[in-house]
């Protein structure tokens, strides 16, 4: 088991965003988390690498308890890729330098090694020719692909995707999704929060449906989409089909 999440709780003031979430992830597995906005999906991802500190509960990466105060969280974060909804590429750095920063400052690679590695990852997401471009000179889709390259370059054990296509214009979503599909097929372990049901259906090994801070239902895509058990899942799927027109 690569990742194990046990009974995570998080509260912001009066609002209880996570109310005891538990699940696990096998090596090479892709799980997709779906659910209405504001149900704690992003908070859950951020609690996993402790960008947000959970109030209660434990998270294990392989045998290491991430949530232990004794752990060097920076070492752990270097092993967990994170892809943000709004990319968060470093504004003052070129695409190449964005990918190189972690390699040089966290992994301690030489500039030469880091450059080689970074160029390989940029090529993998189809952006080798944009290495010298600053984020503001790239389209949203290209920025998100650079940010995936930035995560990949660290050789992560898994990558967390926080609604990676929500900030994109519709015509740019495809290029990002196809990079993610390739990743999943190459055996990368992925945990993806998304509203892209087509992606969820075709790539996920398992779907997790979350609402109001708890996991309502989880299962393989065919089962969850075709014959959901819980009435809340049925309701959510009905609404999302109305909104997005079903299959993409």
């Amino acid at each position, binding site marked *: 088991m690569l990742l194990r999440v046990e009974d995570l709780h998080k509260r912001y003031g009066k609002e209880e965003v996570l109310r005891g979430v538990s699940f696990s992830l096998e090596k090479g597995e892709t799980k997709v988390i779906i659910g209405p906005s504001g149900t704690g999906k992003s908070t859950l991802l951020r609690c996993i690498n402790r960008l947000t500190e959970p109030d209660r509960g434990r998270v294990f990466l392989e045998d290491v308890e991430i949530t232990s105060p004794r752990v060097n969280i920076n070492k752990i*974060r270097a092993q967990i890729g994170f892809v943000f909804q709004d990319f*968060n590429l470093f504004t003052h750095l070129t695409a190449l330098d964005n990918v190189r920063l972690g390699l040089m*400052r*966290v992994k301690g690679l030489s500039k030469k090694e880091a450059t080689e590695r970074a160029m390989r990852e940029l090529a993998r997401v189809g952006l080798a020719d944009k290495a010298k471009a600053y984020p*503001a000179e790239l389209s949203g889709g290209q920025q998100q692909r650079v940010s995936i390259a930035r995560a990949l370059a660290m050789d992560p054990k898994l990558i967390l995707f926080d609604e990676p296509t929500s900030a994109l214009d519709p015509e740019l979503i495809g290029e990002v999704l196809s990079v993610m599909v390739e990743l999943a097929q190459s055996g990368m372990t992925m945990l993806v929060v998304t509203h892209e049901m087509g992606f969820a259906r075709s790539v996920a090994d398992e779907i997790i449906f979350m609402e109001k801070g708890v996991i309502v239902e989880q299962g393989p895509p065919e089962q969850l989409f075709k014959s959901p058990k819980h009435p809340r899942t049925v309701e959510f799927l009905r609404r999302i089909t109305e909104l997005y027109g079903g299959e993409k």
Partner: protein
Amino acid sequence: MNLVFRWAWLPRLAQGLALTLELTGLSMALGAAFGIVLALVRVYAKGPLMPLYGLASAYVHFFRGTPLLVQLMALYYGLPTLGVAMSPFTASLLALTLNTAAYQAEYFRGAIQSVKSGQMLAARALGLTRLQAIRYVVLPQALRLVIPPWSNELVYMMKGSAVVYLVGVLELMGQAKNIAAREFRNFEVYIVVALFYLALVFLFTVILRFVENRTRIPGLGVPGRP
């Protein structure tokens, strides 16, 4: 009325100009170093470092809330009564540095806080420590954003440094005052010095524009772009 101008004034004034540039340059550089530290403390200090935050804030408010002239006089005339005597130049450099550090701290703080929070988040997600994230991600952006207010501060200090002639430093104003007193040509000498300052300000404005353009990065500090 007859206005008189003598070429013989120029060498002295040039000496004074050199000292004005030295005082401005040194105080701005030292003030920047101190100002960045103050700003970092004011933005990032938390937990056990909270007392530092209080100290830094008190410092900034005190030095921004009181006249430079008082600070200078207290250092030059006041400290010797405690047995700490300084040369006019040292006292002046110290006063200018302490003063500009407080102002620069606020410019740096504003710049640091205008770096989007997602930048810190993304840096931490990669495994950078807080200090590394500040060093490699936040500060490089903040330093570029701070150039316009910093340019204003430079001009302000170039002008502000003129008060140090009151404790006997022979910078541009000090030299002017000596010439004026010797030759009874106050108005003319001060007009020439005013032209010196106009030229200086013009020159530095042009240079800093150039620096700003050279260090510009698309998407950073350009309003109206996401």
